[in-house]
């Protein structure tokens, strides 16, 4: 299913696209926009809460702390969709659990919609990270 999302190659232009996405996310959060969870994200958070004591605030903090290095997949440069969707590898909670984090920004509105937050089933390469 992951293959259905594009992975942008590491170029200064693409890094700029991801940075723009993250800046817009932080701007919305600082303007008081709360994250909305899809049913799937809500189900996944239940496992994180029971297994690792992760709370909603931890997910929000993880999103706020993302950098381009966390980028995994997403952002359609054509920008024809209702939401710009991007996936990241991030750590959450007191145990620094590594999770797959995917959310979208509404293009004609302000919603931040969380699609996924779960422990990844496979290693996640981060194309913008200097290993």
């Amino acid at each position, binding site marked *: *299913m992951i293959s*259905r*999302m594009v992975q942008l190659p590491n170029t200064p232009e693409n890094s700029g696209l991801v940075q723009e996405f993250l800046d817009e996310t932080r701007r919305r959060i600082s303007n008081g926009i*709360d*994250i*909305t*969870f*899809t*049913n*799937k*994200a*809500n189900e996944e*958070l*239940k*496992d994180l*809460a*029971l297994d690792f004591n992760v*709370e*909603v605030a931890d997910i*929000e903090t993880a999103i706020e702390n993302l950098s381009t290095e966390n980028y995994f997949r997403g952002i*359609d440069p054509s920008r024809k*969709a*209702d*939401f*710009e*969707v991007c996936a990241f590898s991030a750590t959450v909670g007191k145990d620094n659990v590594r999770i797959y984090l*995917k959310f*979208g920004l*509404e293009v004609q*509105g302000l*919603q931040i*919609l969380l*699609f*996924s937050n779960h422990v990844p089933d496979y290693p996640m390469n981060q194309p913008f990270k200097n290993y």
Partner: protein
Amino acid sequence: MTRENHLTNELHGITYKMHKGLKLEYTEVFYLDYDVDEYTGLINRNKTSKHYTKSQVDRNIKALKNAYHIAKGAASPSEIINFRDKYQISASMLSIILGFSKNTISNIENEGVTSLPSGRLIKMCLDNKAIIYQYIQLCDDLDSRKKEEISRRLMEEIK
């Protein structure tokens, strides 16, 4: 409000979650909005699905953890309320008798059990009135008249 700024109701539904062999049942809150495809980012205006605000997720996770603690042997808020009603003990008084701070029982009744050890201790006490009776006698913050009153109500049950 939905994505298109239409007023919407907060909905409630019983939900189940299996976790490590335990079936957890609790009430969840949510609202409905148009589904969004997570791969294309397109809104499907022919289908609605459950969505959750941050505050709703917060409340749902608290309810889930409360259900988990109860499944692991903690007292449920309703058990505590029923016990207090039966023996006419206020929430603050039960807190003090058990050695908690004054508001602990009230908080648990309103928000659920937040700690498994505390929840299990309360459950043990509710299920064994001889323990509560002993704690009442040992409580320094109750005067002798109050101790006698509560003890009498408990003892009637034990006899």
